[in-house]
C-alpha cells in the first residue's frame, strides 16, 4: 500500500506526520521523501545512508561535423532548448525536458546524448525503516523527473509512505499519483484552509481516497472542520499546539519519542487509513 502525505500549504506538519507514522508502524515499511527541493525527513529519521546515486536527465549535444544546420531540431523543440541561427546551433540544456524529439527528427543523426545532473538519491536504514530521498541539485528547476526516480524504489512488499512537497502543481502530482491513499495535513487557519481546498481539488482529479490530519488544531478557527464536513473528508487525527512539540520539532526530535503516548494514536491513524483506502476504493469502483 502507498500512502502519500500532502498539504497544499507548506509547514503544516507533513514531515512530522510522515516520520512519526513510519516510526510507529514499523517494518516492513519504507519512507520516501519526495520533497526533493527541500527534503527534511532525514533530519528526524536519522538514517545511516548506505548508498548515494547521482541522477541525470538525457539532454542533446551536437556533433558539429554532421550537423547541416537544417533547423528541424529547433522546430520540434517545444521548450526553446535549441536555436539554430545561420551556421550556428545553440543548446540551452537547462530548458530541455528530455522528450527525445530532436534525436528522433535529426536527419543526419547529429544529435548525441549528453546529460544534465538532476540531483542525488540516497538510501539508508533506521529502526527498521527503509529510507530513500532525493535531493534536487541547487539551480536545477525540474523536480518531477527526480521524484519519479525516487518513486522507482517503491517496494510492493512494504507499506510505502511518501512525504510530498507543498503546493498543487506538477511536483505534487508526481508524488501523489497512483497512491492508494492521500493523507492531507493542514492547520485550521485561513491560509491552511485555502490551500487545503486546492489540495483536495488535486486529489479529486487523481481520484484517490483521502483523509485529513489537523495540526495545531486548537489555534485559528473552525472553518477547516466545516469544510471537511461539507466535503465528507474524514478527520483522522488532531494534533494540538504544544510548545513542547514545537521545541522537540525544532531539534529534530520525533513526537513519538518525546511523548510516547502518540505512538498509539499514529497506530490508530494507520488502521483508519487501511480501512478507508479499502472502503473508498470499493465505493469509487461501484
Amino acid at each position, binding site marked *: 500500500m502507498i500512502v502519500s502525505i500532502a498539504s497544499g500549504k507548506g509547514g503544516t506538519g507533513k514531515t512530522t506526520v510522515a516520520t512519526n507514522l513510519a516510526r510507529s508502524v514499523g517494518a516492513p515499511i519504507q519512507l520516501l521523501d519526495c520533497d526533493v527541493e*527541500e527534503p527534511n525527513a532525514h533530519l528526524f529519521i536519522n538514517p545511516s545512508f548506505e548508498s548515494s546515486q547521482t541522477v541525470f536527465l538525457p539532454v542533446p549535444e551536437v556533433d558539429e561535423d554532421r550537423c547541416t544546420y537544417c533547423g528541424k531540431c529547433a522546430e520540434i523543440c517545444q521548450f526553446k532548448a535549441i536555436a539554430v541561427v545561420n551556421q550556428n546551433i545553440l543548446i540551452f540544456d537547462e530548458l530541455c525536458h528530455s522528450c527525445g524529439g530532436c534525436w*528522433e527528427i535529426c536527419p543526419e543523426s547529429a544529435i548525441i546524448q549528453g546529460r544534465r545532473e538532476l540531483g542525488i538519491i540516497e538510501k539508508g536504514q533506521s529502526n527498521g525503516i527503509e529510507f530513500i530521498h532525493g535531493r534536487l541539485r541547487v539551480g536545477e528547476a525540474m523536480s518531477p523527473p527526480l521524484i519519479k526516480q525516487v518513486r522507482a524504489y517503491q517496494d510492493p512488499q512494504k507499506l510505502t509512505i511518501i512525504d510530498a512537497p*507543498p503546493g498543487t502543481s506538477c511536483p505534487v502530482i508526481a508524488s501523489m499519483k497512483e497512491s492508494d491513499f492521500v493523507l492531507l495535513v493542514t492547520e485550521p487557519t485561513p491560509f491552511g484552509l485555502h490551500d487545503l481546498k*486546492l489540495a483536495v481539488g488535486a486529489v479529486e482529479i487523481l481520484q484517490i481516497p483521502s483523509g485529513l490530519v489537523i495540526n495545531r488544531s486548537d489555534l485559528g478557527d473552525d472553518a477547516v472542520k466545516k469544510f471537511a464536513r461539507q466535503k465528507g473528508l474524514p478527520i483522522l487525527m488532531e494534533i494540538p499546539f504544544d510548545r513542547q512539540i514545537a521545541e522537540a520539532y525544532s531539534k529534530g526530535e520525533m513526537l513519538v519519542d518525546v511523548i510516547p503516548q502518540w505512538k498509539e494514536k499514529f497506530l490508530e491513524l494507520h488502521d483508519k487509513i487501511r480501512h478507508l483506502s479499502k472502503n473508498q476504493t470499493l465505493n469509487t469502483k461501484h
Partner: protein
Amino acid sequence: MKELILISGKGGTGKTSIIAALASLAENKVLCDADVDAADLHLVANPQVLSRAEFRSGHTAAIRKSKCSECGLCRELCRYSAIDADYHINPLDCEGCGVCVYFCPEKAVDFPENTCGEWFISDTRFGPMVHAQLGIAEENSGKLVTLVRQEARKLADEMKHDLILTDGPPGVGCPVIASIGGASAVLIVTEPSLSGIHDMQRVIELANHFKVPAMVCVNKFDLNPDLTADIEAFAKAEELTCLGRIPYDPIFIKAMVQGQTIFEYNNDSRAGHAVKEIWHALSKKLNL
C-alpha cells in the same frame, strides 16, 4: 526601482504574514504574489480585482480516435508513458513536447494550447497588487511567476512606485528560480528548527548561484534561541545581513483569521515591534 522577494526554502515560516505586515509599513509600493501554486496573500490583502486575464502556456496532446490507425508509433516515442493501450493520452502525464503530434503518420493528434490559470491586477488598501492562480495540477508555474513579476514592474513604472514587495514560493525549484532571477534582493524568512536551517542553507546557495543579494530574518526565534544563534552565525559567515528576530506570537494567526495584518489587529504587539525594526533595517539596506 527595488524589487524585494521573500523566500524561505521551507514552507510555513511566515513569509506571507510578514509581507502583509511590511505592506502596512511601506509606502509607494506594488505588491506581488509569486507563490502562484498556493497563493495566500490575497486572503489578507482582500484585493478588488481591476483586470483579469487567462494564463495560457504549453500544449497538451489528444488523439482523435476517428483518424488513429493504432500503429503504435506514438506510444513507442512518448518518453512520459502518457499514452495508454487504448490510445488515450493522460493529460496529467503529457509533457506537451509534441513528439507524437509531429511523428503521427495519420496526423491524428491534436495539440491545443493550455489555459493553465489566471492572473490579476488589483487594488488593495495597501496599493496595487499583481497576483495569479495556477490551475490545480497544472504546469508552467515558472512562466506564470515570470509574468506576474513583469506586470508588477510595469505597474510600478507607470505609477512611479519605487518598491515591489513580492511573496515568493517555498522550495528551490522552478517557481523559486523564476521568482528571484534579476531581483534587487531576497529576504529569507527562516525559523530556528533543523528543517528551517537545512532549507535556508539550500536557498542561500540558490541565491548565490543566481547572484541575488540575500538577507535573513528569523521568525519564531524564541522557540529555539540556540538554533537562532546558529542561523545568524551561519548567515554572517556567508556574509549575509541578518535583519532581525521575530518572537513566536499568536497574533499572526489571530490577525490572519480576521483578514488583517498584525498592525491592523494590534499596533502594539511584540512581533509588531520586531517587524518594524526589520523594516527599518531593510529600508536602509535597500536605500529606500
